[in-house]
């Protein structure tokens, strides 16, 4: 576009000026609309696809925090519309392995089929659905995931579902050791690597009690408080009886039942489990008597002289969290047998005390001392066998019995239809010192694979050579492939 002269543009006729003015006004109004403030700008696309989640994550707001009593009624995941690009059902099958159910038989060449994170079938000849992730366990042993009755540094504090680093090295190493469920402060939580979903199994089930002869005043106070609450329970029962007979009675005063008294009431109703740290014989006897007298569920932690109070603990229906290798020298000044013994766990179990095994260091350590932290929880159970326990029973102390002690045995601790799909695939007897975990599955998802994670992949990648039977670890010729 050319123009003729330089300055004549504004010397225009009045008519043109009016037209120009109108044009200016029109444009100003329009411009305000177009270039106004941000709120009135044309709508932006939503920033990301917020509603749908990637296929590997379940869309269920899973039942994590509720306690489930009947495994068969569990519905783990709500299904999404297939149109959203995610599978309606999530199937996983572990095939061809030697399956140790723990509460049932050992099945050779069996399949464990899992749907949406729950075991739906175990056996041979199980038909697999069309869309199913298949994990081949040929030549390997399949176990339920291990349960750690003491743990730290794996989950976060407070509510683990909010504070846990789900990609932490500690959690990964614990999974490499086969641990799939662990106590986390006041909660029992799963090692759901990579997701916050389905993490918390149970919250607030334990009530810590102190009943030690080292603090006689506190001891007396606890007993008195329990007496008071028990009396209240009896009053309430009497009131109910009288009311049903039609008597005109006043209900007992309930105002004072709050705070610790409310917790004691729950304890006596067996809604809470009492947890006591005690080691010596007399302490254990005393707390067993307390539990039996007042009728509450008791778990003793430590209990290195449990073998001295085993029958008392058994009568009280108590459970024990012990470390077989606890080493307390006998005090020769005492004129009764005392100290620790490797046979502690076995003796407790023989007297009906449910035993969960924990290691010396209830955490994951990476500074080089091997075999005394959570990575080798299975070795601590092996030491229980040294003490005379059978291999099968020792396996239970880190699976189903540990789950029972933590109150989550309806969900984990064994391979049964209806229970959570938490499995380990190992290259040998889990209580043998050469065995390593090759695959760990939590909530029906593969969360650890030895071959893919560099940490241990270089150690015997093909698995332990030789036989895996307990009593013949070394070939008789004692040759070993290089």
């Amino acid at each position, binding site marked *: *576009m*050319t*123009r*003729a002269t330089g300055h004549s*543009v*504004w010397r*225009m006729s009045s008519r*043109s000026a009016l*037209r*120009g003015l109108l*044009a*200016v006004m029109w*444009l*100003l109004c*329009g*411009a*305000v609309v*177009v*270039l106004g*403030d*941000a*709120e009135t*700008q*044309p*709508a*932006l696309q*939503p*920033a*990301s*696809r*917020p*509603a749908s*989640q*990637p*296929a*590997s*994550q379940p869309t269920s*707001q899973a039942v994590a925090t509720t306690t489930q009593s009947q495994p068969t009624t569990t519905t783990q995941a709500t299904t999404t519309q297939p149109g959203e690009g995610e599978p309606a059902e999530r199937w996983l099958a572990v095939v061809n392995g030697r399956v140790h159910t723990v509460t049932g038989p050992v099945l050779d060449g069996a399949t464990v089929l899992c749907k949406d994170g729950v075991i739906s079938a175990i056996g041979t000849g199980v038909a697999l659905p069309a869309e199913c992730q298949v994990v081949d366990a040929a030549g390997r042993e399949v176990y339920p995931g291990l349960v750690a009755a003491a743990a730290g540094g794996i989950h976060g504090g407070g509510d683990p579902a*909010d504070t*846990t*680093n*789900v*990609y*932490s*090295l500690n959690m990964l190493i614990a999974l490499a050791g086969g641990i799939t469920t662990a106590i986390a402060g006041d909660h029992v939580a799963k090692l759901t690597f*990579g*997701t*916050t*979903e389905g993490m918390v199994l149970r919250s607030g089930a334990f009530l810590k009690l102190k009943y030690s002869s080292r603090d006689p005043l506190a001891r007396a106070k606890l007993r008195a408080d329990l007496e008071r609450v028990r009396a209240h329970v009896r009053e309430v029962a009497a009131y109910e009886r009288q009311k049903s007979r039609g008597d005109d009675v006043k209900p007992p005063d309930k105002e004072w039942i709050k705070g610790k008294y409310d917790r004691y009431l729950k304890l006596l109703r067996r809604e809470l489990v009492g947890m006591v740290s005690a080691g010596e014989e007399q302490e254990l006897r005393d707390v067993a008597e307390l539990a039996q007298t007042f009728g509450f569920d008791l778990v003793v932690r430590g209990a290195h002289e449990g073998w001295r109070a085993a029958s008392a603990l058994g009568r009280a229906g108590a459970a024990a969290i012990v470390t077989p290798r606890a080493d307390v020298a006998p005090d020769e000044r005492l004129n009764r047998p005392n100290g620790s013994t490797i046979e502690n766990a076995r003796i407790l179990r023989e007297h009906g005390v449910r035993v969960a095994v924990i290691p010396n260091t209830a955490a994951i350590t990476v500074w080089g001392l091997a075999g005394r932290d959570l990575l080798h929880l299975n070795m601590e159970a092996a030491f229980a066998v040294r003490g005379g326990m059978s291999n099968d029973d020792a396996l239970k102390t880190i699976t189903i019995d540990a789950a029972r002690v933590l109150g989550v045995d309806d969900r984990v601790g064994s391979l049964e239809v209806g229970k959570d799909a938490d499995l380990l695939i190992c290259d040998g007897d889990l209580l043998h010192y050469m065995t390593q975990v090759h695959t760990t599955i939590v909530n029906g998802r593969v969360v650890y694979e030895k071959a893919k994670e*560099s940490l241990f992949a270089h150690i015997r990648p093909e698995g332990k050579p030789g036989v895996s039977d307990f009593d013949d670890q070394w070939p008789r010729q004692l040759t070993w492939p290089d």
Partner: protein
Amino acid sequence: MAGVGHRAWARVIAVVAVAGLCASGSVGPRCLAGEPADEDERFVVIRAGRVITNVGDEVRNGVIVVSGGTIRSVGKGLEYPLSATVIDARDRVVMPGLINPHSRNGLPRYGRGGVHGDLTVAEEYFPLADAHEDLLKAGYTAVALVPAGQGIPGRAMIVRTGGDEDGRTLQSPAYLRVTADKRLLRGALARAKKEIEKVETARKEFEKKREETRKEREKKAKEAKGKKPEKEKEGEKPAATQPAKEPAFKPPPIDPAHKVLVDLIQKKPGVFALVELGNASDYEHMQEVLAKHEIAHHFLARNHRQSDLEYVVEKLGRDEAKIILQPEMGRVPYSAERLHLVRVFSEAGCEVSLMPVGDRASEYAQMFGRLAELVRAGWSREAALKSVTLHPARLLGLDKRLGSIEQGKDADFVFLDGDPLDPTVRVQAVMIGGQIVHEAEGDE
């Protein structure tokens, strides 16, 4: 308009252009006051050795025609007024001005916690002319300034780094800044939901009352029909004939700090949250809350040294997420193995924007160098150049105006003396809204 000749049309077009410039605000009030301005100066023409447009191929020895601060055309052999201002940049490379999507440049430090959705950077922003000189010199033409603190400290403000002081604001308030405090966000969203319910309840109450009042009136009207009209008292109109003046529904006020969260829950257009992640686990936790309420959001992640963000790359890539990262080569955690996290995100399908490693002048100046390093290590050149221009523009929602050199977008350019990925490249000039606002001096 018969009989109006070319000259009249030329005047009209000139007036239109003037009006456009006035409205865009890039010219001051002098224009509206009617003072004569020379129409030739409103056309700016850049003859550029290379133009990196971000849409399609580069243009070599091309021309960019700018008028009123906006790009009119880009190409070769274009027409422009002979006496338009011509900028000879034939020895220069012209690309869109860089955009910093997250900064506190020029703003003081302070700490803050809690939920403050009502606060914006505008409240602490008192721009001096050279407030963002450091960014400008480094080639940045726009910056999103964020409030300081943790939690939900408030909303960002997007400004130009130079040009006329009064016209710098591009968007305010902009995105809501959210740091990785899951419980705080969950609580804030729960509170916002309560506010929504509060309004809904009040509305229902109001409608119920209105319905009742209406029914009352109707009933009275029926009764009044069937009766003899009563002796009217003075000044009193019969109830039936009183026109009911219905008051409009006045919703109870929403807590100002949570108002923006209400907007997010109600999916108000143009409103989104920028969620800052420290590690991969933060993504899982925050995503749990964000997905539950279906909040529009983008992510920012600080991926320095041994970040474990690779764990969530696949998920973010599948969502084609827009994410702000730092231009650093990292390592696989607990390993010496190098990890090109930026490239991994990019190739997984994410739209990667980059922000300087640190919020300081030396890092702004380093940006081109860092891009070059990332490209040398295997990243795509195209993705690298877009990560500081088009992608941040899209993330901020300003891609209609910024981020590439094409018709209709703002004339915000940076002039380089070489290829942007050349290690010796320097910023020679910066143009904002068609005006050169910075020229490098000598050894700068």
